């Protein structure tokens, strides 16, 4: 099968990958780069498990062609913490019980990090709207709202960690 050569920047590192022209960002990060923190939940843009950041914006990895993100900065869940230091969202999700089975968690965290970098003090409606493209079957979402509030409060008291992320909003590439 014909393959194309792409130059991608993922989590700050440069990669040259040979992939099918139809390969998605999800295919590349999971299968080629072995960054398996990004999950495949439906492969058709309905669950949000594969959410990654493309130039600071939350995108569905399964609906975004890898060829589209050449020249962009792609960030996956693996880059959210700094070394062993969890991102405030990650700590808050762990502490508040916002992660149960954990399979949807990376997608939610990436969506929320895009939200909070753009909107440090989101209203409950903004939070709900931002995560409306992500599905969780375990929690009923209640504990997520608590966790997002807690992380937002903590981030406001700390200097911003990711100034390089041009922060724009929510999910593109189709959400339900």
């Amino acid at each position, binding site marked *: 099968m014909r393959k194309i050569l792409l130059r991608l920047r993922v989590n700050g590192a440069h990669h040259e990958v040979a992939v099918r022209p139809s390969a998605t960002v999800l295919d590349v990060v999971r299968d080629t780069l072995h960054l398996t923190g990004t999950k495949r939940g439906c492969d058709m843009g309905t669950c949000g498990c594969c959410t990654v950041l493309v130039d600071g914006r939350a995108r569905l990895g399964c609906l975004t062609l890898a060829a589209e993100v050449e020249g962009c900065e792609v960030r996956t869940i693996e880059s959210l913490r700094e070394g062993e230091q969890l991102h405030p969202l990650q700590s808050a999700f762990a502490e*508040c019980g916002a992660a149960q*089975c*954990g399979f949807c968690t990376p997608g939610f965290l990436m969506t929320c990090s895009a939200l909070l970098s753009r909107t440090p003090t989101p209203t409950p409606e903004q939070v709900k709207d931002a995560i409306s493209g992500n599905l969780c079957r375990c929690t009923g979402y209640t504990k997520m709202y608590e966790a997002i509030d807690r992380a937002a409060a903590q981030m406001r008291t700390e200097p911003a960690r990711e100034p390089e992320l041009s922060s724009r909003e929510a999910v593109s590439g189709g959400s339900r």
Partner: protein
Amino acid sequence: MPPRPRRPRPLSVVGTSPPRLEGAAKVAGTARYVDDLEFPGLLLGRTIRSTVPRGELLGWSMGRRPRGLHVVSAADIPGRNAIALLEPDQPCLVRREIRHAAEPVLLLAHEDRDALASVAVELRERPRKAQLDVRASRSFCKEILIEKGNLSRGFARADRIVEGEYTTGHQEQLYVETQGVIAVPEKDGVTIYGSLQCPYYVQKALVELLSLPPERVRIIQVETGGGFGGKEEYPSMIAGHAALLALKSGRPVKLVYDRSEDMLATTKRHPSIVRHKTGVRRDGSLTAMQIDVLLDAGAYVTLSPVVLSRGVLHAAGPYRCEDVQILGRAAMTNTPPNGAFRGFGAPQTQFAVEVHMERIAEALGIDPLELRRRNALRPGDTTATGQRLGADCSALPCLESAVRRSRFVARRRAIEKHNAKARVSGGPLRGIGLALFFHGSGFTGAGEVKLASRAALELTPTGARILVASTEIGQGTRTILSQIVAEELGWPLSRIEVADPDTREVPDSGPTVASRTCMIVGEILRRCAQSLKRALGRMTPRQYLAKNGPLVVTEQYDRPKSMHWDDVHYRGDAYGAYGYGCDVIELEIDPVTAEVRPAEVTAVQDIGRAIHPVLAAGQIEGGTAQGIAFALAEEVVMRDGRMANAQLTNYAVPTPLDTPPMQVEILEFPYGHGPFGAKGVGEMPIDGPSPAVVNALRHAGLDIRDIPAVPERIAGLVDSMRGAAT
């Protein structure tokens, strides 16, 4: 006065909410699920499935075969071609007879995903007339009759007789991680890495299928992205398939379903038809309950007899009545087999009884709240099987607390005023409804005695290591079991480790189902901790190990002496303990789209003791969201015995936008034989929301008796109601 919750002694670990033990890995993205695992020489598997709901397989043909393709058919099965569970009726691969669409026929494996997908297989099937109507089916895999008192005496004492029929549809578990396993061929057997709830169920099935001794079939549960019952029995099927491919090819095989295949082929909640005929006196007291329960089992038995059992045992709801008859039947149809889903029959039958209670109140012209107060089970009352309830029977406290917290009476009055105006103006209608429910923890009747579960604790230099086959599937098994052990030993949580569920390492602590992990396995572990403490005396673990060598303490399930069950007549103590709950749901109906928007939910549940209050509340919130969607949104559309909407675009599970704020209150009426008083919590939360929703719709003026009440159905009712009003 109802008994007050009592607190036996101050606790330091139980009752606190530390972060879940594997939480850091989950939020960091480093937790490894099946599809994240790699093995050298790994092949990918694919399943070829029947296209007709009933018929005969005459043969198959295959287009171009890529080099390195491996094919497995029923002829390759070394042992018995059956998934060993309750009955050996379900084949692992179709040999000749096809009983449902999407039944597995052939297995393929190849190292390249594209090459694998390119293989064209044509099945030659001779269709036969399929039975797709459960009401018309005369083939029953199980019948259960429960009789208490004398039904005709009960009806004779009644002032009124109220009848009703209530139905529920399929529901898909929709764990966010689809079913998946990896089978690795070993020198003399096979190892399975899987997303699953019950390692020893899978082992039992593979021993039969592969004709291998148990010690050569090793099952390891890896991080599992949700189960809700869907990974109770089905993993035996998919693990069987991967194992057959691995043994034939001599290479590791990964079989992970895509979402659509998962929805088409795997088990769902049993659809139900429940009929009630109830005798009541003018004051609202129940004199007779005659209940007929019919479940659609689908094409094979799977767990249907036990789902039916739990269904009938909860069919009378948490109500007192001396003259009761409950007849349950599970009928076979040519649809994919239904199986375990959180609640396991109880959500279906309690939907019926709780909606029926509302109709009884209506028929008598009394307040439905008063009707429930009058009839709710109290300590000392007996259930339909004659089980006498102890001091932990908390139906009334749950009801009163939910009514108080939700300001039910005031809200109901305010809504009625609002609706009187809305009916004229065409604005959104509102409704508030409640449901009272209960849920038995653990296996039914003598089930726990038969399981005879074992759990073990191993002394480590720094503390203790838990050895159980009970799996973490998101509900918090690792954390709460560690808390129980730490509490009993008087150690901090950090000194407790948990072994991975691996049949080579851990004893069979039974399946992770039936709200039994905390109450049953937790109690066995608490007793292990007690024995360990005794063995240690005043020594530290290090001192003990230096002096005496390794120490593993094993304990087995111990039946409470007062518990008795007669499985022939369905009499006696059906469950060791019951949790109780009351949900109040307020909702609004969009006048244009007929969408129902739950606005506020109050869930009060007695779980004996919250080992970890945050995780317990998480179970209640998640189960409640699933229960609301069961009533309003999750519709499995079956066409010719095949799910027509097998994808997330048109099978609607609740998103954040669909899920209302929830107010959860946990009550603690301790159970003497549960660890620190704990009962089960996993399943009960899904019993209450669907009747509470439908009762709220009734309050808004809509007569719904069948769920899911999707907007298409609501719209017709709203239109006809407005027509009647103008």
